[in-house]
């Protein structure tokens, strides 16, 4: 009886994992076939989609590069703004603290589409040109910074506050104390906020769609806007199968490495 229950349990887990991974694995397999269309039968192993993807002349690689670049810029700016803001919020009076934390929560709760259109209305109200990239960068910062604040504030709460006072008493300037005492203690939160910002920026479709310059595309807007009925569209779409497969391989690698590290750590403890 116990054994049956255990088998059922793991069968369930495997079933759900299959559901989660099957579409990606399915696409990975198809990325190695010659045709650009999913319905076409397998005619043998082919790297054509990979060749197309890795050719700098073609759109997909350019789009991937500029999406990554945008994510890095947005994440860096969000992390700086969010970290400085968190320290400020943490040391302000209770009322200011409560008010800012509440407003910080609005973009987190709000639907992306409402955030995007309200921001787009502001942009048109102020008359800022989208081709300056400022709307896109500020728009995505709006998406990311609240999460940076949410990952830094808990670390500030855990921090030992006496160390900062001690540093001041020992003659450190407040700026020096900030960088040598506070920042190192909240660094894990800052890093988490930075990484989260990168994933949020990479994943964003709606904000980018409403704020990007017409000539610019991110991975999300590019795939979404592809015209699959024309030959070039189908080719680009198939190149993204290759890209999906590459990311999938990287992820599998990360899981394996993290597993090995965890296993080694456990071994050392014994």
């Amino acid at each position: 009886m116990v054994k049956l229950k255990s088998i059922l349990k793991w069968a369930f887990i495997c079933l759900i994992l299959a559901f989660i991974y099957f579409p990606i694995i399915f696409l990975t397999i198809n990325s190695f076939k010659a045709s650009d269309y999913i319905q076409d039968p397998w005619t043998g192993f082919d790297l054509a989609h990979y060749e197309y993807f890795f050719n700098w002349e073609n759109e997909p690689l350019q789009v991937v590069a500029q999406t990554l670049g945008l994510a890095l810029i947005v994440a860096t700016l969000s992390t700086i703004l969010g970290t400085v803001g968190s320290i400020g919020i943490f040391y302000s009076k209770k009322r200011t603290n409560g008010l800012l934390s509440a407003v910080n929560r609005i973009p987190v709760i709000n639907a992306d589409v409402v955030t995007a259109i309200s921001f787009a209305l502001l942009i048109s109200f102020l008359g800022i040109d989208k081709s300056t990239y400022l709307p896109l960068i500020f728009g995505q910062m709006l998406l990311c910074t609240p999460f940076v604040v949410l990952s830094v504030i808990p670390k500030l709460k855990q921090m030992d506050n006496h160390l900062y006072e001690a540093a001041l008493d020992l003659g450190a300037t407040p700026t020096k104390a900030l960088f040598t005492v506070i920042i190192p203690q909240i660094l894990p939160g800052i890093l988490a906020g930075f990484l989260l910002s990168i994933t949020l920026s990479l994943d964003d479709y709606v904000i980018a769609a409403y704020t990007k310059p017409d000539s610019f595309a991110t991975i999300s807007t590019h795939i979404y806007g592809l015209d699959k009925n024309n030959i070039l569209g189908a080719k680009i779409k198939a190149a993204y199968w290759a890209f999906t497969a590459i990311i999938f391989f990287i992820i599998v690698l990360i899981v394996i490495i993290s597993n090995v590290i965890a296993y080694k750590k456990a071994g050392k403890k014994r």
Partner: protein
Amino acid sequence: MTTAKLKPHFSRKLLAIPYALFLAIFVVVPLFIVLYYAFTDDNNVFTWDYLILFFTDGGSLAQFFSSPIFQTISLSLFISLMSTIVCLLIAYPVAYIIANCKLKNKSTLLLMFIVPMWVNFVLRINALKEFFVWIGTYNKSDAWNIINTIIGMVYDFLPFMILPIYTTIIKIDKSYLEAAKDLGATAPKAFLKVTLPLSKSGIISGISMVFLPSMTNYVVSNYLTYRNVKIFGKLIDDYFSGDLWHDGSFVALVLLLFMFLVTWLTGGFEADEQSETRGTSLW
């Protein structure tokens, strides 16, 4: 403390100013602009027109229930509700099994459910679409379109349901369960009386992280149904793509109020867990 106060040094509070300005300009002001557009016409004159149009569809109040807006909202609510239920039915057992398994590397197993999120979500939805094309259910009928949308939402949001539930279950003190058993409770009864109530906060934050996004993430519904299923988020997008800013702002306002209501009901304004599960605990 007193010595520090005596020293003249810059106040750390001041560091909040740049972010406070950022929030004021990019969060608070835009919401007021939405409010402004919802209640003014093209000549900047105050009007109830868009409210009346929303609820009457140009006729009487009774027509609301046959209007396209009502159909979109009810379909969207149905999809959202089904996605949330399916997510919960999958996520709870998964979180429970992982939290209670005897494996040493529980976090690796959990990681396997989370990592697909690192693939860009349009790429992931594209993979699902190609799969639907292959098995032949893509855009086959209205019913299939709705089913495919629900599958897409579950596929996209499942990790957001698993994580908060897992975090609450793993925190439950095992001695409660032992006590329940010592007092004669059967295993199912101990689960119903101890584990389930103690994981309530995780379930609620999971629900709020799936329910609201599945009403608004129109990329999923558009992409998986050849734009044949229209959800609440798409309604707003359509108005703005069609330059109907006033109509769009009013609908956005309705959605905004609905979201505040749901968040208030689920206690999302107080709990930090909701956002923490999306963020920090992943890393």
